[in-house]
């Protein structure tokens, strides 16, 4: 026991000294810190950025959108992050954390891809997300599958489709908010009663792929990825059209490295930065001169649902969530 005690004391001391020493590696000049979505684009992005700016060290923290905002808000008095890439509606409901900026090549972004509040622009579309239907063909035949958002109001689809809870997931909120504008407040209760909501959105595509549910409301790229992996699934594009929502790179107010932050955001908005996103994540991007993802119909060939106002999805978010909670509770109270 004395030998063990001595070994443990020494090991403990070494460990604490290591952690304390490394804790002293604070923000240095010549670096930029970003919070962004995870993906295969991170490493090639950093390499490409460093080819242009070899003296700026890039430090990345990958999170989901709501967790990024939670972290930014908690760090508000002493920001640790310079640039953040997250969903437009999260950026626009937290503009007090951000600094607006104008990108010199803004002309390459269609108006729906510019993250704007009044005259202030907070970012430009980096990834474009569209919510579609993913069907497991062993659980539901294509002939029986819904073809439109309004079809989801039919009784035959009650309990048959899964999506993330709008209160805590970006994808779930996007689907819900679109449906609210398409079906209207009078029908949204039916939609909520028919749907199955999951607190965790990441595994919704897997659950559909494995046949846990016949169908899911899923972001297009993830749906396509499931098909590529060989799952018995098919993608259905709703007949009303798609509602593209974007995420973009925003500058954090009072970030530790504002100049480098600007350079990084501009790189990510550039053709080179956006094409890395296409090549490594197979994502649609905001720039009209960027490459198209493989296997997905180009935006020019896709029907856009102009009846849905994306800016309303942002401005009406608190009211929409309250409406969802009201009917969700009514539905689940029977449990």
């Amino acid at each position, binding site marked *: *026991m004395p030998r*063990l005690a001595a*070994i*443990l004391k020494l090991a*403990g001391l070494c460990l*604490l000294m290591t*952690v304390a020493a*490394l*804790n*002293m590696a*604070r923000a240095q000049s010549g670096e930029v*810190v970003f919070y962004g*979505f*995870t*993906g295969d684009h991170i490493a090639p992005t950093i390499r490409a950025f460093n080819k242009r700016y070899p003296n700026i060290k890039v*430090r*990345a*923290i*990958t*999170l989901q959108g*709501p*967790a990024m*905002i*939670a*972290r930014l808000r908690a*760090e508000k*008095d*002493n920001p*640790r992050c310079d640039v953040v890439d997250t969903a437009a509606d999260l950026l626009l409901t937290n503009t007090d954390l951000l600094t607006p900026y104008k990108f010199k090549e803004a002309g390459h972004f269609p108006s729906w891809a510019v993250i704007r509040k009044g005259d202030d622009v907070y970012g430009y579309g980096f990834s474009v997300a569209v919510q579609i239907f993913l069907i*497991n063909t*062993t659980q539901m035949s294509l002939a029986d599958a819904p073809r439109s958002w309004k079809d989801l109001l039919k009784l035959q689809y009650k309990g048959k489709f899964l999506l993330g809870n709008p209160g*805590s997931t970006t994808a779930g909120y996007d689907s819900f908010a679109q449906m609210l504008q398409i079906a209207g407040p009078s029908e949204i209760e039916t939609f909520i009663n028919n749907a*199955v*909501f*999951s*607190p*965790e959105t*990441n*595994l919704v595509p*897997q*659950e559909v*792929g*494995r046949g*846990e*549910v016949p169908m899911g409301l899923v972001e297009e790229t*993830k749906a396509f*990825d499931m098909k590529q*992996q*060989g*799952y*018995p699934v098919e993608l259905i594009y709703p007949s009303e059209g798609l509602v593209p929502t974007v995420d973009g790179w925003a500058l954090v107010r009072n970030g530790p490295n504002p100049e480098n932050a600007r350079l990084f955001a501009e790189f990510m908005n550039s053709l080179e930065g956006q094409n890395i996103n296409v090549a490594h994540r197979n994502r649609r991007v905001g720039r009209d001169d960027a490459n198209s993802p493989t296997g997905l119909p180009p935006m020019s060939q896709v029907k856009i649902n102009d009846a849905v106002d994306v800016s309303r999805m942002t401005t009406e978010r608190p009211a929409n*969530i309250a409406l969802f*909670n009201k009917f*969700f*509770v*009514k*539905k*689940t*109270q029977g*449990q």
Partner: protein
Amino acid sequence: MAGAAFFALFLLYPIGKTALLGFVKPGSELALASLTLGNFTAMVSAPLYRAALLHTLFVAIASTVIAVAIALPAAYLLARRPVPGRNLLLTLAVVPLISPPFIGAFSWVILLGNQGIITRLVAMTTGLHLPALYGPFGMILALVLSFFPYVLLFVHAALSAADPALEESAHIMGASRARILRTITFPLVMPPAAAGALLVFAQSVGNFGVPSILGREYTMMTTLIVYQIEGSFNINGAAAIALVNVLMTSAALLLLSRYARRNRFTTITSMSRAAKRQGGGLAITLGAIYVWGLILVALLPQAVVVFDSLAERWPGTLWPTQYGFANYRYVLSELIEPIIHSVTLSAAATMLSVVIGALAAYAATRGNTRLGRGIDLMVMLPFVMPGLLTGVAFLVTFNSGPLVLSGGALIMVLAYVVHRLAYIFRSVCAAIGQVDSRIDEASIVCGARWLYTMRRVTLPLIAPGIVAGGVLVFSTLVMDLSITLLLYPPEWKTLAIVMFEQLSNNKIGYASASGALAILITTVLVFLASRLAGRSMAEMFR
């Protein structure tokens, strides 16, 4: 003094400050003018909150009762009967506690989901349809099988250390085995069983991973806390919900304290000896089958993680269509640094937890009763709070002001310590409770100072409790996600973060391979720690 300073600065201050935000209007600073009970009245008036409260109570109580019911006989058999492979079983009993976040719960979907392997096999062979996994049934199943080892290990440690003289005397006097069990053995093990049960209850109340995958629309309090933080960064609302969780655990703690005070038995004296494991025949065979069966069923999620890691293609079919090591080849190239980070941070936090937790437990059990209750509550408060809220508390408190720790790794270590202190605390409290205080007193009467008595007399007697608690802290920290997400700086990406990224990118195979490696590494390190301590894994829990 150092322990008190640690408590004040890193436990009371951030956690207490965040908890007080539950009494403040949303978006307001902590000030008298902003005080309100509005965040709490929502619990009573809002149906969603009422439902979540009832769901949480139901799931937590059911999980606790079932966990105790299945763990007690197993602990008795392992401690007092010659169950074959006892050492191996005690080693394996730690593994269910090492469950990779999300993917561990998703393993139950792979097994018992609507299209799960077992579900489909049962339907194919018998035509029977198993009950739906999603909802309270699935959550209770996952929580029971993940957390019953707390009860098993604590009770086993107590039974192994207890002097069998009482039971042997009763046997000599003619008492039947059933009577001995009922009147001597059972009361002896109730304090450590209750300590283990409290951990099961607190974990069930504070767990988010299981409800997020298996709960679906059966909302729990932790689901609401995450909605409050991630949906609207309403810390005030989240803190109020967390305080209600703490209230529930405090009620359980109060019951435990009252029970322990009435039923405290000293079983370790200066003349204690280990009980012999005796018996044979059909009863032992059935007992061995029960214990082996229980442990193997509890290991099913980990087995599924390993199995899935070897599946290169598993596109929704009953079995994978292609096996191989491609997942491992990929993750091994990515995982070296995260593994080193996870082990370093977990080890540092474990050592600090052991020192602070053991001192706190000693002060709580041997000191003033009111002080003891206060320390108990302070230690349990962060344990019951979801890791996400603890992470927020630390980030908000130590991001600016006189002490800035954010941006480095030290804040992670401190948050880990505060969140997991309860393991060491409960385990050591149970161990100290068994030691006759007269042993300490005899040492002091003979002239030894407190520190000498603590080092040479008390510590060796409670060492099993300390080691057991330390093992639990380390093994659960390696894959912590919820605190880490909020606090990790770029240079300290951990294994859990990598797994989370893989899940987010729809790479289940990679996530399973990472999870399998994490389980292996943790088990090996715990085994090495036991060797270094000069004990086998089984003896660490005696």
